[in-house]
Structure formats: structure tokens, C-alpha cells
């Protein structure tokens, strides 16, 4: 059985490692990394599908990892974003859970990570447990599937370059 890595992940946006999974779900190591986020020493996680047939050391994530899923914050409260490149150019999107008006009052939540913060809606806040199946599905399909919602990141939250 080949266990060649198909994905790489980054912690804190600097160290990149091949994602090592013994099954197809990709969820065990993803879950472990998401649970390690404390918002201070370990504040972000990026999942990137490696180019076909190229191991991590033959890539340059700094310039090639332009489509990805990422989270920032802590295992208790994190934001999850996806960047993808379509026919009209790059899209940077914030992921949300199905909105539940009883459990998710319409009030903003500030997610802090490292020395930064971002404000999202309550239904866009994930725990590590809640984010794991989202990342696992992205690992398997490269997409964010219903019932999750997506909204464009606001201009003052991020710039846009292809």
C-alpha cells in the first residue's frame, strides 16, 4: 500500500509538513493539529493539496499554495477560510456552519490569533471538533460542501492577488 502524501499542512504559516495519513479520511492528523491550536504559540493551520506527482520538497508552498483551506484561532474558537481560483480569478471565502438562530445569535465574534484578530459571525466560529469534518471533506474533495455556507472575505480583511 502506498502512503505517498497527497497533501501538506502548515502550522503558523511557516513550517510545512507532508500530511501523513494511513487511511483516506485524512481526519486523524488534521484533528490532532486543529486541537493543538491555542491562538498564541500555535495559531493557524493550512491544508494544501500538493501538485499531482510532486512531493513537498519539490514544491514551493510560499508561491504555489494559493488554493487552500485554513483556520486561525484556538481549538475553542477558530475561523475557517478557503481560497480558490476560478475562471473570474481568486476568491477568498469565510466558511460558516448552518445558521441556527436560537444557538447562533446574530452578534459578531472576535477571533484572536497571534497578535491579530478578525471579526466573524457566530455561525462562522468553529471548535476544533466542528472544523475537523470540514477539513476532512476538503482533504477528500477539495471543496466545501453543503450545508456549510461561504461568504467573501471583506476587503478590509484581506487583499487579493492571484
Amino acid at each position, binding site marked *: *500500500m*502506498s*502512503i*505517498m*502524501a497527497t497533501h*501538506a499542512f*502548515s*502550522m*503558523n*504559516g*511557516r*513550517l*510545512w*509538513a*507532508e500530511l*501523513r495519513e494511513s487511511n483516506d479520511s485524512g481526519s486523524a492528523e488534521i484533528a*490532532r*493539529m486543529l486541537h*493543538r491550536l491555542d491562538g498564541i*504559540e*500555535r*495559531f*493557524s493551520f*493550512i491544508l494544501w493539496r500538493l501538485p499531482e506527482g510532486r*512531493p*513537498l*520538497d*519539490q514544491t*514551493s*508552498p*510560499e508561491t504555489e*499554495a*494559493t488554493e*487552500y483551506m*485554513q483556520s*486561525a484561532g484556538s481549538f475553542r474558537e477558530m475561523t475557517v*477560510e478557503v*481560497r480558490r481560483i476560478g475562471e473570474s480569478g481568486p476568491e*477568498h471565502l469565510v466558511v460558516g456552519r448552518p445558521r441556527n438562530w436560537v444557538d447562533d445569535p446574530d452578534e459578531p465574534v472576535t477571533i484572536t*490569533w*497571534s*497578535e*491579530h484578530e478578525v471579526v466573524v459571525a457566530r455561525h462562522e466560529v468553529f471548535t476544533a471538533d466542528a472544523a475537523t469534518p470540514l477539513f476532512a471533506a476538503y482533504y477528500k474533495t477539495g471543496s466545501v460542501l453543503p450545508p456549510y455556507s461561504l461568504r467573501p*472575505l471583506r476587503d478590509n480583511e*484581506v*487583499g*487579493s*492577488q492571484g
Partner: protein
Amino acid sequence: MDRGDGRDIYGRFTGRGGYGSSGEALGLSEYERLTGNVVIAQHIRVTLPDGTSRLYDGLSPQSDGTFEGIEVKSGTASRNAQQRAFDDPVNSGTQARGRLNGVDIAISSVRVIRVP
């Protein structure tokens, strides 16, 4: 590179921190600190059944008693053809053997990590 808002030009979260200098030892320690994967920073010669051998930058114990070979690459460095020719069968199920502090060990997978 951080744009000053904790993201790089592609919107990826970067935050503060980083490496004052690059290198294998720092890469291994950062890998252990960030991922929680235990790393033994020893260069151990391991051998495939066909007799070819290789050194890894570090070893990480696995739950099944085998070890994962850790190869650190910084900057634009990549593995050479001999290293890849060794790693591919290991990652496909052929265990490499070596001795760690006098104990026979098996390497059952290889993981590449990149640091700036």
C-alpha cells in the same frame, strides 16, 4: 512574507514569529513544538533490503513501534534522486532497518518538512 496584518499576499495566516535562521536542528525542534510529534534528532544510518542506505535528519516514533524518518529541507533545497529512490519504497511498505542507541528499529514511513 507577512503584509503587516498577519497575512501574506495570498491571504494565508502567518502571524508573528518565524525563524531567525534556518536549518535542520531548528526545523526539527519547530516541527516537534508545533505538531506535537516527538522527534529524535539523531542521524541514524538505515538500510533497505537491497542494501542501499540513507541517513535521516531525525526519527519520529510511531504508535506501532516503528519510526518515521524525518527529512528537513530549507529554502529551495529538495531531496536528491538517491534520497527519493530510497524514500519511495519505504513510503510504499518496504521497511528500512537500522540501530538506534543499540536497539534494532524499523523505518516504515518518511515525512518531508519544509522550513524557510
